[in-house]
C-alpha cells in the first residue's frame, strides 16, 4: 500500500461563499487505480469538493494537485484534457443531442481539427469523425446502452441517462473519473449493475472518485472512504473502518429517535 502513487491531492482546501464556509481545511489524497468514496449527509460539501476538483470553484485557501500539477485556477476544459472527467448529481446531458453525439462531444476533447477542416471536410475531419464515432459506439456498448445510440438524450429513461453521462465522461479519456451520486434514483437491481460497471471502469485503468448516498453501494465497491460533514473531513479509511466509526454513524445515518 505504501507504493501507491498519489493521483490527486486535496491539500488543506478551504472554500468560502460569502460568509458561509463550504469546505473547511479538507485534506485527502486519491491514489492511482483505487476507487475512493466520498460520503456525507446532504449538504456536507461533497459536491462543492467535487466542483473544486474539476475547476468549477477556486479554493479560497489550500491547493488541489493532479499528478503533482496545480489545477486550481486552470481553465475547466484544460482540466478535462489533463484527465479528470465527471458526471453530475442532477444529470446534465445535452438533451437535444443523440446519445451518440453526447459521447462524441466528450471524445472531441482530444480532437484538434477545427473550423477549416470541418467546413471543407478535409481528410483529417473524416479521420477524427470516424474515430470519434467508433469510440463513442464502443463506450455506449461498454456502459450497456448500445440500443439507444440514436435516441435524443432527453428521451432516454432515467437510468440510461446516468449511464450515458458516464460514457460521455469516459470519452474524454480520463485518468480520474468523478461520479456524483450515480445511483440516485436506482432500484436495487440497477444499483448492482452500476456496481459492476464501476468495477469494470476501474479495471480498465481509470481511477474512480465516487460520491454516493447508498452506503451499501459505497461499502461494496470502494477501496477507501472519506467522510465529510459540514465541510469538514470527519473520517477516512477502509469501508470497514468507516462503518464502525461512531461519528460517521451519527452523522450519516441520522440520530435514532431519542424517545
Amino acid at each position, binding site marked *: 500500500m505504501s507504493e501507491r502513487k498519489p493521483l490527486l491531492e486535496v491539500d488543506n482546501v478551504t472554500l468560502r461563499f460569502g460568509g458561509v464556509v463550504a469546505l473547511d481545511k479538507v485534506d485527502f489524497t486519491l491514489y492511482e487505480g483505487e476507487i475512493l468514496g466520498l460520503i456525507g449527509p446532504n449538504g456536507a460539501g461533497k459536491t462543492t469538493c467535487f466542483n473544486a476538483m474539476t475547476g468549477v470553484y477556486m479554493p479560497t485557501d489550500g491547493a488541489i494537485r493532479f499528478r503533482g500539477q496545480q489545477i486550481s485556477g486552470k481553465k475547466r476544459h484544460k482540466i478535462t484534457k489533463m484527465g479528470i472527467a465527471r458526471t453530475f448529481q442532477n444529470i446534465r446531458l445535452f438533451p437535444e443531442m443523440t446519445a451518440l453525439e453526447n459521447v462524441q462531444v466528450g471524445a472531441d476533447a482530444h480532437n484538434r481539427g477545427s*473550423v477549416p477542416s470541418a467546413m471543407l471536410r478535409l481528410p483529417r475531419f473524416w479521420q477524427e469523425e470516424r474515430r470519434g464515432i467508433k469510440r463513442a459506439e464502443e463506450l455506449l456498448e461498454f456502459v450497456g446502452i448500445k440500443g439507444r445510440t440514436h435516441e435524443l438524450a432527453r428521451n432516454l429513461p432515467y437510468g440510461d441517462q446516468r449511464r450515458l453521462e458516464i460514457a460521455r465522461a469516459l470519452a474524454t479519456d480520463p485518468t480520474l473519473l468523478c461520479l456524483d451520486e450515480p445511483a440516485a434514483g436506482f432500484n436495487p437491481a440497477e444499483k448492482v449493475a452500476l456496481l459492476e460497471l464501476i468495477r469494470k471502469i476501474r479495471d480498465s485503468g481509470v481511477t474512480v472518485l465516487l460520491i454516493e448516498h447508498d452506503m451499501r453501494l459505497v461499502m461494496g465497491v470502494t477501496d477507501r472512504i472519506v467522510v465529510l460533514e459540514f465541510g469538514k473531513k470527519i473520517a477516512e479509511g477502509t469501508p470497514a473502518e468507516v462503518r464502525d466509526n461512531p461519528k460517521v454513524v451519527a452523522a450519516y445515518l441520522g440520530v435514532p429517535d431519542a424517545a
Partner: protein
Amino acid sequence: MTDVQIKNGAPEPRGFTGKLNAMSKPGRWAAITALVALFYLMPLGWFADPPGFYNPLVTFSSDFGTVLFDAAIFVLLAIGLNVVVGFAGLLDLGYFGFFAVGAYAMALLTSPASKLITDYHWLDSPWPWLAALPVAIVITALTGVLLGWPTLRLRGDYLAIVTLGFAEMIRVIAVQSEWVLGGDRGISAIPHPPGEIGGEPIFGFVDPKPYYWLVLTVIIVVVFGVRNLARSRVGRAWVSIREDEDAAELMGVPTFKFKLWAFAIGATIGGLSGALWASKVNFMNSTTFSLENSILVLAAVILGGAGSIPGAILGGFLVAYVPEWLRGLGGFLGLDINTTEYRYLIFGLVLIVMMIFRPQGIWPNRRREAEIKDRQKEVAVGE
C-alpha cells in the same frame, strides 16, 4: 429498467452523424435540386409573369427581381445570424453592424469616390473588385473577433445589449459626416462585380437578376459550409454550449474559443452579404444601418426557426419579401387602401401571432420542435 414509453421500431437515424449515412438518398437530392432550380428560375419571365395570368406572388409595387435580390441578401444574413443565435445560442441584437462593416469596407476599397483615395491618400487607386471582396470579408471577421473577445464572457441579455450597443456605435460612426465613411453623403460609384458576356457587362444597373443569381450561388456555397460545420465537432460544440455551457466546458469543450468562432463565422457571412450588397447598389450612406435592420434579421431567424438552416432561409426571405409584397396588395385586390402605409403594422401583427401559435418557428429544427412541444406540456397548473 425502462421507465419510459418509447416508440417502438428501429431507431430512425437522426442527428448530424446519423444523417451522414442517410444523405445519399437520391429522392432527397432530387427534391433539393428541383427547389434550387426553381429559385434560380424565379425572377425569369415565365415564373415572375406567367403569360395570361396575373401571378399573385410577384410584388406589385416594387421590382420583383430586386426584391428577390434584397430577400436573398436577407437570407444570407439570416443564415449567418443563425450560426450565432441558433447554433451557439448567443443573443446578438446588433448583427447588422457586420453587414455595415462589410459594405463599407467594400465601398472604401473599390470606389473611386472613396475618401481613402480622395482625402486621405491611403490608396492610390481603387482596388479591383475580386481583390477587395476577400479583404472586406476578412476585415469583418476581424471585427467579429475584436467585438467577441471582450464581450463573449458576458451571458445572455448582457451580451444582447452589448451587441446592440456595438451596432449603434457603428451607426453613429457611419453618420459622422466628416469621417471616412461619408455620413449621409455616403459613398458613390461603388463598382459592380466584373464579368462580361459578349462585350456587355453581366452586372449592370438596371437588371437585378444577375445579382440575384450571384447571391443565390453564394448562399448555396455558404449553406454547404455552415451545414458541414453544424455536422461536425464544431456544431456539436455549439449545441453543447447552447444547452449547458458549464457541462460543455467540463466535457473539455473550449467554450470561449467556439463561441468566438461562431461570432467570427457569423460576422464573416454578414460582411460577405454587406460587400455583395454594396456592389449592387452602387451608392450607400448611413441611413441604411439603423438598428431596426438588426432586429429584422433576428426576427427572420426566429420566425424561421432558430437553429434550422432551412428555417433561416425561409425566415430571411419572408422578412424581406412580405413587407414588399404588402405594398401593392390593396391595389391588387382592388381595394382603396394604401397597404404601403400599413405594411409594418401588419408585419408586427404577424410576428405576434406567429410567436403565439408557432413559437418554434415555421421550419424548425426537428429537435427544437420536439423540445418546444414538450415544454408546452411542462407548465405549472393554470399558467
